[in-house]
């Protein structure tokens, strides 16, 4: 028998799809490199400082999401077998808790939970409690946190200086990391350019390069500073406070990123085949196919989106609840619900893309080169594949990036209404939902709400800006 590994990899369905999407994106990069018009369009994206800055932010979010998608079940420490039982001796036993690489990286954040709320950088609990005094007797007061600022002897006096000192030190580290990234990037740009390295580096810093490298570098610098400060301070303080059950809000916000990315991308991914196939077929073939497809999307459009989603989610919940045997772990169960939500959102939102594709195909089929292909006797599937599909891909591309931000925002609303992700899945929606009831407290518990909204705002704003730039670059009408 082989020695048990320290962990057992777990591949959830959404992980699989997310990695498939990533692989497709990589394949697309190679395809684009070989295709001059596409390369030119993407270069147009890269020339815009907004595009580069937004792309940098999105890449940072994607990195968090990918780390959070590498799931595994850790090995449980071997238990002392009760005397007499030899049943599962030597068999490695894995925890039913599914963790991700991000969880492992954020271990101090994940495990350092408090009793209940505490404000950002607090050293005391939010709630008053009755405490035993060492010399006997009891007193009502705010107990110290178990982890937040626990390394300080006298928090009142030392906290400000400690935070400032550590933050300054980490800014230094961030500058070093940024310099390293800059050297690597400049070398990459310099390679094969025929100019001196120094010239290239100076041009990048002055913003004189063709692609807007300076915007990317500035954004990267800001991200690195924030990350470095968080790495330094997060194990010692609760940088964004803790929530009702004492979990670190920064940890929750970072975990929410994956959910948002999954909803924003997989939804479009699962709806795309339908939209492309039906839209192109309706536009090119016309006749009863067109009638049927139009009927289908009018029916789906006629039902108000939220209600269709609500109905479908309610039904799906019943299916999941009545078939507990399908899922090994709670993570698989909530993952199934997340995936189902993506499908449902996809079904309700493919109609818009299909209609656009149908219209574009109607236009394309009358163009000379398509007519010529038809006159030469090229078969319909070949025409669709060779002549129509490549010429509508820019619409698909634009739809993919434009839909992303809307879907991320929709997730929060749906989770609030109770038809979103599983309540155990950490997402911006569930965070807002949990924090909402606490606004009425005095003093107000604002931090988890603020953290969720701030993360969401940065993600959606970057996505919106990026989508605008991509649309400008790919839309031939502009």
């Amino acid at each position, binding site marked *: 028998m082989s020695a048990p590994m320290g962990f057992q990899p777990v591949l959830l369905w959404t992980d699989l799809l997310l990695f498939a999407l990533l692989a497709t994106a990589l394949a697309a990069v190679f395809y684009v490199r070989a295709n001059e018009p596409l390369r030119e369009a993407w270069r147009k994206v890269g020339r815009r400082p907004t595009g580069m800055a937004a792309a940098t932010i999105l890449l940072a979010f994607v990195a968090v999401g990918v780390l959070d998608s590498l799931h595994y079940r850790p090995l449980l420490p071997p238990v002392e077998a009760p005397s007499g039982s030899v049943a599962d001796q030597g068999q490695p036993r894995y925890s039913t808790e599914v963790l991700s690489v991000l969880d492992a990286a954020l271990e101090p954040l994940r495990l350092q939970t408090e009793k209940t709320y505490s404000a950002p950088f607090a050293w005391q609990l939010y709630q008053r409690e009755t405490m035993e005094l060492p010399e006997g007797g009891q007193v009502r007061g705010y107990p110290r946190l178990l982890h937040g600022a626990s390394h300080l002897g006298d928090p009142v006096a030392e906290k400000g200086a400690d935070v400032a000192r550590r933050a300054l030190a980490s800014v230094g580290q961030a500058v070093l990391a940024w310099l390293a990234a800059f050297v690597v990037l400049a070398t990459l740009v310099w390679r094969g350019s025929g100019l001196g390295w120094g010239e290239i580096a100076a041009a990048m810093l002055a913003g004189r390069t063709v692609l807007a490298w300076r915007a990317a570098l500035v954004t990267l610098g800001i991200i690195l500073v924030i990350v470095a400060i968080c790495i330094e301070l997060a194990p010692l303080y609760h940088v964004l406070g803790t929530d009702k059950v004492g979990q670190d809000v920064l940890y929750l916000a970072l975990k929410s990123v994956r959910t948002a990315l999954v909803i924003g991308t997989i939804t479009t991914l699962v709806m795309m085949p339908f939209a492309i196939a039906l839209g192109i077929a309706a536009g090119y073939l016309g006749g009863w196919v067109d009638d049927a497809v139009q009927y289908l999307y009018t*029916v789906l459009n006629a039902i*108000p989106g939220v*209600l269709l989603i609500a109905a479908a989610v309610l039904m799906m919940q019943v299916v999941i609840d009545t078939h507990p045997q399908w899922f090994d772990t709670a993570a698989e169960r909530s993952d199934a619900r997340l995936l189902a939500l993506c499908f449902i959102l996809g079904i309700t939102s493919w109609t818009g893309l299909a209609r656009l594709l149908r219209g574009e195909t109607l236009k394309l089929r009358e163009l000379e080169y398509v007519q010529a292909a038809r006159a030469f006797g090229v078969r319909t599937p070949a025409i669709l594949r060779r002549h129509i599909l490549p010429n509508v891909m820019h619409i698909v591309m634009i739809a993919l990036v434009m839909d992303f931000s809307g879907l991320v*925002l929709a997730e929060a609303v749906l989770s609030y209404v109770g038809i979103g992700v599983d309540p155990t899945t950490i997402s911006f929606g569930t965070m807002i939902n949990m924090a909402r009831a606490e606004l009425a407290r005095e003093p107000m518990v604002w931090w988890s709400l603020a953290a969720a909204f701030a993360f969401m705002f940065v993600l959606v704003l970057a996505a*919106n800006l990026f989508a605008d730039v991509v649309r400008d670059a790919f839309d031939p009408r502009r």
Partner: protein
Amino acid sequence: MLAYLVRRALYAIPILIGVNLLTFVLFFVVNSPDDMARMQIGVKRATPEAIERWKAERGYDKPMFVNTAAEGGARFTDTIFFDKSLRMFALEFGRADDGRDIGQEIRDRMGPSLAIALPTFILSLFVSISFALLLVFFRATYLDFWGVVLCVAMMSISSLFYIIGGQWLVSKMWALVPISGYAPGLDATRFLMLPVLISVVAGIGSSARWYRTIFLEEISKDYVRTARAKGLSELAVLFRHVLRNALIPILTGVVVVIPLLFMGSLLVESFFAIPGLGSYTIDAINAQDFSVVRAMVFIGSLLYIIGLILTDISYTLVDPRVRLE
């Protein structure tokens, strides 16, 4: 025109049937009534008798499509499909899980929903179009640039934030209006001001940006140059020519939603505790009251189709070249 409308109305019937079939499949074929009963009662307490009682109380104990036990027409009318699905065409929605008549409830709740949706609709149309016209008037200046940036930033903010933030700022900090609630009659203004304001602000970003694109597209056309060449002022060009001609694309997006105003806004109504159709729907979703959700789906699609027909009619009003035939 009349013939056209009749044809459009007839065309609506297959669509409604489609919606109906879809909801029926969703609610009764994907899950059997037994599954729903078990879920509602709770898996632990779901004895066969309890399930039967739950189904009988709600009329789910009939056969799905064909009732072999019944005679004559009742063979088909005494079934779940007829009772729960086809009856909706006569606007008979049956009873909710709490025993109240859904049709009556919908009639009662339409008023508050409209009281909040109608002012929101008109105000946001006015504000967004004015803002977009302002941006177009100052196009290609810093004002335009930062205006668009503001729009993008505003549409990147979750609607939940607008509601929660607005409630906190206006009701709690400034104590100008009550946080939530509703009163019939004129007294309602007090309660409606904040939700209307918040809905308008939350919508400005995306709609103003959309109107701006429409106006910009219109302003690059030849007739606008002609109008300027005649010596018309820029303001006259904007209001008399561009705004009017941009109405067609604007109407396409706007008229469709007018009938849906009855449905109310789910979020705003539930946050502000306004007894409209939106909060009714949310309550039904949370209580997993399938019959209410089914009824709302049907009404929603009916209103959507009415909206499509209204859109066509509105074209003839703003563009004399359009004839409905």
